[in-house]
């Protein structure tokens, strides 16, 4: 599993990417959200925080597999 951080989430976490050995046991997007929120409380201040699995938006209930590419998607602001 790989976790990518974009925009303000990268600033909060302090790096663009985890190889996520420490999150090995998580089951769902919601579990990962809870773990990250606990470790980086500033994530909870964002207007919204979505997750993507393998380049597709994923709900909190979605299961995470060992080889997934996860991305944190803070509020988008293109255009």
């Amino acid at each position, binding site marked *: 599993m790989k976790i*990518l951080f*974009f*925009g*303000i989430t990268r*600033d909060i976490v302090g790096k663009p990417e985890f190889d996520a050995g420490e999150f090995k046991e998580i089951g769902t997007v919601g579990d990962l959200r809870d773990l990250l929120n606990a470790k980086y409380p500033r994530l909870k*201040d*964002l*207007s919204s925080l979505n997750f*993507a699995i393998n*380049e*597709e938006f994923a709900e909190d209930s979605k299961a995470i597999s060992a080889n997934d590419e996860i*991305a944190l*998607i*803070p*509020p*988008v*602001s*293109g*255009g």
Partner: protein
Amino acid sequence: MERIIELVEDLDPGKVYEELSHPGSGGICVFFGAVREATKKRKVSHLFFESYENMAIKEMNRIADEVAEKWNLNKVIIKHAVGNKKVQEPVVIVGASSAHRDSSFEACRYLIDTLKEKVPIWKKEFFDDDEVWVSAHP
């Protein structure tokens, strides 16, 4: 429907007509987003854009699929810049080309509205003494 979808360092706004021109098109509507000199009265020095590139391209293609389904279009273009952009530089170009003008206007508006809502691109505003990720906080 033909499509041109790109994330690039530098957008060339001068090519948009030829990119959207089509023998079956009587109407071509284009929207350019550009860097403004000020936001909420604060002077902007420049903007920085980053993207989750593969997913952004995927989402842009999804938007193109949607407009192809909703309207009868000959061509669409969805291009976004990444990196640092100065005041008056273009940051996004979307456009639609169709037989009649109604469809081109409606599709063009849908393209930019949906891009701003869905595509994983992030903008940071740089001021003389500060920098802010846009929309990050309530």
